[in-house]
């Protein structure tokens, strides 16, 4: 039936103009050296060579280490959370999952803005600590503030896929494990954890990718002192005006992320993402 086939044509044109062309243009800028104009630009790998500069290299390593730290924190906090949720009956589980998802719907900027009021030097946290007699701590505009913001925002993306894979597990498997003499630890490592691996992989990859490409949270809670890849890209386009270098960093970031997601799709084809 060919009747409806032509209905895709508006989107084919749209996708060509607004998805493919911009992507090609990023590549063109990344591999040329003409600055803002493309007319007198020649092929060059200068932008990629520039990344080995120690100043930029620290941004790469900081992004990756922040990504790893955020992912580990989300995993160690989120796994028990997902596991404990499955211990309640189905209706309660539905409500708990809903409560977990609601913050994801609220504007990220507004939620991050609230953290400033809590974490700043004369903020809520410090006045609470003062009441307890503990001296003021300076968290705002440090890596700690950025990590708190990242974990708070990305934790649901770890909890939800792990919960999905855990709730697919047949509970009688666990009973069988106990009947066969497994203790609690064995039942967990041999049965429960194995079932949750797809969810864990899913959560780990998504959290890591979101953390390394984060832009708003490091800017607002790190206050320009904590530059990650996203902030580096912004600087190149907005203040420095070195589009070639900015495009090259964007391209690297895009390739890392697209490769990781296609890997994820291969290991978990009917994934929860």
């Amino acid at each position, binding site marked *: 039936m060919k009747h*409806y086939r032509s209905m895709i044509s508006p989107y084919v044109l*749209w996708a060509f103009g607004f998805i493919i062309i*911009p992507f090609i243009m990023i590549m063109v800028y990344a591999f040329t050296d003409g600055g803002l104009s493309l007319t007198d630009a020649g092929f060059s790998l200068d932008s990629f060579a520039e990344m080995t500069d120690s100043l930029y290299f620290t941004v790469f390593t900081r992004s990756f280490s922040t990504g790893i730290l955020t992912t580990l924190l989300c995993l160690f906090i989120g796994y028990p959370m997902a596991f404990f949720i499955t211990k309640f009956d189905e209706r309660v589980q539905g409500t708990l999952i809903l409560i977990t998802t609601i*913050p994801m719907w609220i504007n990220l900027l507004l939620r991050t803005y609230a953290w400033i*009021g809590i974490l700043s030097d004369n903020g809520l946290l410090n006045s609470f600590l003062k009441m307890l007699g503990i001296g003021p701590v300076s968290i705002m505009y440090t890596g700690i503030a950025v990590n708190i913001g990242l974990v708070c925002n990305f934790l649901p993306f770890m909890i939800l896929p792990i919960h999905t894979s855990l709730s697919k597990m047949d509970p009688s498997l666990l009973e069988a494990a106990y009947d066969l003499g497994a203790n609690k630890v064995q039942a967990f490592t041999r049965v429960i954890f194995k079932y949750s691996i797809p969810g864990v992989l899913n959560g780990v990859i998504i959290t890591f990718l979101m953390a390394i490409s984060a832009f708003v949270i490091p800017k607002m809670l790190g206050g320009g002192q904590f530059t990650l890849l996203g902030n580096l890209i912004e600087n190149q386009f907005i203040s420095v005006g070195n589009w070639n270098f900015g495009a090259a960093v964007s391209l690297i970031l895009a390739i890392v992320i697209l490769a990781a997601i296609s890997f994820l799709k291969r290991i978990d084809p009917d994934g929860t993402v």
Partner: protein
Amino acid sequence: MKKFQKSKLFYGLYIGVIFAFFYLPIVVTMFFSFNSSKSLTHFSGFSLRWYGNLIKDTEIMQAVYVSISIAILATIISTIIGTLTAIGLSKCRKLVREMLLNVNNIPMMNPDIVTAIGFLILFSSLRIPKGYYTMLMAHITFCIPYVITSVYPKVKTLDPNLADAAMDLGASPFMALYKVILPMLREGIFAGALLAFTMSFDDFVISYFVTGNGVSNISIIVYNMTKRTNPTINALSTIVILVIFVTMFIVKVIPYLIGKRRKEQLAYEENN
């Protein structure tokens, strides 16, 4: 049995602590939006002062208008294009279908900042003045993929002969689409539209790079005001949060209640 109860209490406690972590910023924002002083740490009395300021602040109200109107327009346009594409895709050859679906995945998988840079380069090199319409075009572009991924799985579950059957019975292709296919996709279309709306309404990174000429949405305004404390933002946050809570309630709880009632009705009818 007692041990079981104890562990449940521990589970509940842990879940409660995590929820407190999630909701602490939200609760703090809402609480201090009613503060009579400017402080974000000391509550000196109940007042609606910041709500008054909010209504009077033309800059913020303008941003609210931009956010809402772009979200509505982007949702309508992306839902129409996305739904038509999803239906058309099911009739296409495999090669075309897979290519388009792969391209469609790019805006969803790419980090926002890279998508934003792509638009920035595109609009600048075409010398299109940045502002409301560039923002709208960018929003439509990143919303369509979410509509397609919500609608296309539903299209795949339809009987491929459905449209033919309608046309054999005398419907024109348009009538078959409008009267038969679209109603069967209602759930997917609705889910896609809701997703598109929230994606557009919440967007910061892409809007920030494609806007210009003083056009800002809510996210951009908040971003520009973070350097100084401004409880007017808290008042705005509170309203946004309440709207989202009410929407989530309507979307999640009401279908559940209707479903429950329908089940009860069915059970009643079966018994009689």
